[in-house]
């Protein structure tokens, strides 16, 4: 049988999904074992026991200097910035995207402007943000918004433009005004597609968050990683990276579930579209 026609059984498929994770783990254990046998105080590839100790110290013990549980405080600070920024970016993306995608005057006026703005590297703007908005929360949130919103705007505008023109004609023959078309035809069909593009923007959003926290911050997951880097504390950095990955992965899954639950028509409509 040709390779393209061979399919794994469901159980085998689940097992295969685990294989790369196990392989990475095993490779790490071997490397760590070799280095630690040569030098027991090696810091680059710490053993699982020192990970457990670091996780216990960061996530379950109160920090002696501040009186807080550090992982909790860092996570709170980072998620606040991330969610605030994503909420602002989604609002901008929806409003500008629908307006540009639906109204020819706004497409003519704003379309190329947004296309150019989305090409500005957001990190190059970070010094400007720090200068104008200070080193507080505002500049970090602004960086994420600047990084994410233009992509959302362009994607929403494209999706609105992809709606079959027959729908707009049909709505008009039912007597709909522009506002009613936005409210009853365009917006409900844009929201599930917006979730798709938001899922793709979660990665960049974390990138900008950690970059901003690394440069100037007093709390946050990115701040912590860059702080303990000075002590080569791989036993803290690697669990933090795993934690950030897990958070991002959970956000992605939550959005996928939200899309399925809130828009039950979308899957079938996309398949038959």
């Amino acid at each position, binding site marked *: 049988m040709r390779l393209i026609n061979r399919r794994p059984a469901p159980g085998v498929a689940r097992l295969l999904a685990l294989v790369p994770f196990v392989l990475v783990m095993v490779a790490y254990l071997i490397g760590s074992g070799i280095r630690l046998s040569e030098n027991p105080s090696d810091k680059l590839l710490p053993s699982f026991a020192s990970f457990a100790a670091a996780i216990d110290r960061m996530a379950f013990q109160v920090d002696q200097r501040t009186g807080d549980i550090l992982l909790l405080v860092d996570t709170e600070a980072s998620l606040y910035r991330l969610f605030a920024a994503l909420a602002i970016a989604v609002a901008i993306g929806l409003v500008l995207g629908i307006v540009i995608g639906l109204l020819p005057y706004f497409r003519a006026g704003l379309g190329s402007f947004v296309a150019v703005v989305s090409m500005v590297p957001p990190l190059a703007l970070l010094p400007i943000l720090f200068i104008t908005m200070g080193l507080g929360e505002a500049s970090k949130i602004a960086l994420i918004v600047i990084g994410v919103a233009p992509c959302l705007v362009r994607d929403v505008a494209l999706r609105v433009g992809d709606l079959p023109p027959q729908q707009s004609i049909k709505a008009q023959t039912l007597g709909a005004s522009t506002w009613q078309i936005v409210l009853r035809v365009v917006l409900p069909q844009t929201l599930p597609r917006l979730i798709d593009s938001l899922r793709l923007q979660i990665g960049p959003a974390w990138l900008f968050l950690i970059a901003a926290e690394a440069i100037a911050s007093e709390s946050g997951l990115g701040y912590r990683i860059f702080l303990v880097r000075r002590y080569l504390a791989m036993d803290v950095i690697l669990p933090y990276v795993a934690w950030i990955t897990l958070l991002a992965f959970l956000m992605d899954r939550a959005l996928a579930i939200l899309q399925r639950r809130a828009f039950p028509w979308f899957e079938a409509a996309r398949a038959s*579209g």
Partner: protein
Amino acid sequence: MNAISVKDVWKEYDGRVILENINLEIAPRAFVALVGPSGCGKTTFLRMLLSEERPDRGSITIARQPLPAEPGADRGVVFQRYSVFPHLTVLGNVVLGLELKAAPLLGRLFGSSRRAAEDEARGMLAAVGLAGSEEKYPAQLSGGMQQRLALAQALIAKPKVLLLDEPFGALDPGIRAEIHVLMQKLWHERPLTVVMVTHDLSEAFSLGTRVIAFERRRNEPSDGGRYGATITRDFAVWPKRIAGEPRPPKKKSMPGRDDPVPLTGPLRDDPALQGDAP
């Protein structure tokens, strides 16, 4: 009433003449079928009746009023595809027309006015044979049922003119014959002038009161696109169909391939056809 008058209409795209010198008077309550080869501009003509396109020359009036500059509730439409909204249920698709009319700000009705609108929509859905499918989404319906829904959705807005753009072209012959019966019934019952674009001649003659053929009189490569299509044939269907006076069906021993299924007996599965045959 809702007569359509087309005077000396021309349409060009990029220097190519699509339609030339179209003159047409459509009587109120007529059922006009437009036929012609692909690319002869019959859909362009329909789009002009919809105000989706404007004629380059000439004028179109409905009930002696010039055509509005944009589509409106006076002209309903059913396309071959994408006529219904995928994000609304069957009931929601039909209620939408009533909601848009009654609630300019939110486009939604609540409470007792919503229930009244739903009752009206259910009546319309029963009339097209979709009773029992109210809570489904369009993607869960077959092609024929989607077109029934599109008809119900268009008719709930009570248009004077119904424009059909190859509405049944994608359906299987049996399904198409059933929906033809429904289309005739709806046309007899409601004060509609219908203009239908089709490439199926038998459909044109089995539904229309008048069949009009568009054709290019000259179509040579050397013409440079300077000759458009115009009306070359104009048949009144005989025996005459008169709106509101359905003819009894012909007695035949065996139905033909494209005929409706027999109205009695085990094959009758169309809940829209209750009572006498149209």
